[in-house]
């Protein structure tokens, strides 16, 4: 019997997708002819909710825009409000923010490892990676009170100073993670079966990647050294030493190697931050903490999250409320323009592999 042409939903209820989205696939046998992405299962109307709230009310819900990695959202929101309202942040608060961002990046990369290894069937790595990520979440809980959603970075600084001995505990966790990362290299990154599955799959062209606005590891695995921390430095990244790892092949395996190298760089940055942490105030002296007057102006701020460049457009209108806050997450273009082109000609079993390597996170697409 010849292969038949069917249409299936690689749907919202599926163990092989990252988050709550679906892809409608036209298949001929097991080869994909056409892919259509469907998002919107997590649409909460954030931008409308934030228009109804003042700055202090909005800051509590902003971290929920991106579920696996909430800290870039908080830092972006704080940076945008500070730029509009003209508030200066102290050095100590900047260093603490960098520490939060890098710890969050490490936790997100561990989550990526669990997802990517699960997509090829290597479930042992998932068990290890989630347990190691939990050690970082314990640190977050000690500092901010919440494991996943912190609500810690406030426009003007951070909310709470570091507890006694916190930096020593961070160092111990980093030492532990450095020994663990060697195990992951053996079982996952340099595993022959992962290499065979991942090499040559999901290849992206460098020229097209730059034009189409792809960000993050997609660009870095094509050989372009793209990182907001070096291109347009924010907070104190211009005082810290780190490299941007790149690969040339542009396929799933290259993106995995880039992510693994970035975890080493994150640990390097954290060690420098622990060493250089200055003393001082953590919160700017504001006339009143609950009311910010945002002028009639707009701005565009961006940070580098674990998956790419995360940017916010914020406009104020001279009152206490925020007129407009638009979120441009890294997955917006990756899930539509990139994924629909990349899946044409791929096999059905590679869909989960490709989605995990692009790092598609649906809540930030439809907010």
């Amino acid at each position: 019997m010849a292969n038949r042409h069917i249409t299936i939903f690689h749907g919202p209820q599926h163990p092989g997708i990252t988050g709550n989205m679906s892809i409608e696939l036209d298949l001929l046998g097991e080869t994909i002819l056409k892919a259509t992405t469907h998002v919107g299962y997590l649409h909460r109307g954030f931008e409308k909710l934030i228009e109804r709230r003042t700055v202090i009310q909005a800051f509590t819900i902003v971290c929920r825009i991106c579920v696996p990695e909430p800290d870039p959202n908080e830092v972006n929101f704080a940076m945008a409000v500070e730029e509009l309202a003209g508030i200066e942040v102290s050095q100590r608060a900047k260093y603490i923010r960098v520490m939060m961002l890098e710890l969050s990046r490490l936790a997100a990369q561990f989550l990526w490892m669990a997802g990517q290894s699960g997509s090829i069937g290597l479930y042992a790595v998932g068990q290890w990676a989630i347990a190691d990520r939990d050690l970082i979440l314990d640190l977050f809980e000690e500092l901010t009170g919440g494991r996943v959603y912190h609500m810690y970075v406030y426009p003007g600084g951070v909310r709470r100073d570091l507890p006694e001995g916190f930096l020593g505990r961070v160092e111990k966790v980093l030492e532990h993670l450095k020994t663990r990362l060697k195990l992951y290299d053996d079982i996952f990154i340099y595993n022959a079966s992962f290499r065979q599955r991942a090499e040559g799959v999901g290849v992206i062209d460098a020229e097209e990647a730059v034009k189409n606005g792809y960000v993050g590891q997609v660009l870095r695995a094509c050989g372009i050294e793209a990182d907001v921390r070096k291109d347009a430095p924010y907070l104190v990244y211009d005082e810290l030493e780190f490299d941007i790892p790149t690969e040339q092949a542009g396929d799933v395996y290259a993106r995995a190697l880039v992510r693994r190298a970035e975890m080493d760089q994150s640990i390097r940055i954290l060690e420098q931050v622990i060493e250089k942490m200055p003393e001082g105030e953590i919160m700017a002296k504001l006339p009143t903490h609950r009311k910010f007057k945002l002028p009639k102006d707009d701005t565009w701020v961006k940070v580098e999250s674990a998956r790419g460049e995360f940017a916010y457009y914020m406009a104020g209108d001279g009152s206490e409320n925020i007129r407009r806050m638009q979120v441009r997450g890294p997955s917006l273009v990756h899930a539509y323009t990139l994924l629909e082109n990349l899946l044409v000609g791929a096999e059905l079993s590679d869909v989960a592999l490709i989605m995990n390597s692009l790092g598609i996170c649906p809540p930030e697409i439809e907010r």
Partner: protein
Amino acid sequence: MNTLIRNRFGTDEIEVKRDDLSKVTVVKYRVFELIHLLVEQYGYTTLNAITCADWIEEGHFAITYMLTTRARRHTFMVQTMIGREEAKIDSLTMLFPQAEIMERDLHEMYGIDFPGNGNLVELSLENWVHTPPLRREFDTLAFVNELHDFREGRDDNLDVKAEMKRLRALKKAAKEAAAKKEALKTEEKEEASQPSAAQKESGHGK
């Protein structure tokens, strides 16, 4: 570059917000000319985002195109105003394929039409027949209250503002009572010292 753009397009001064961000506002029918100029002559190869803000008091939407250089060091915000009724602006999909999804998002949320974009179907909402939600005239709380009803609160649930008023009034009353007591006490003390004075006087008078 900034002076050339200002002279050729008749705009105001190019606003330099940070050393990696500039903004210019042009009229609607010259926006694509400016974008082509930036892309071809000055190397702004990437379109990062298309954003929109609703200025209902002034009767327009402010659409902004974020263009970034090839080395990602500088971003240019190209802003233009379009009317709120019959909101329409040409699509940029020929030049940048990622504009298709960005325009689809704005079409769904604001009701802006982008002729030239063939895929303006629903993205996040499903079977939505009311006003486009991000427009300022759409009242989300009224919409929610019409469609849903919330649970009853707890029996001891109190209204925050009323409760604060009551507590403040209580505090004020307690302060006044304490002040009155203090005043009474000092009066009593004075009276207590007064009879001795009266006694002394009467003593003297005797």
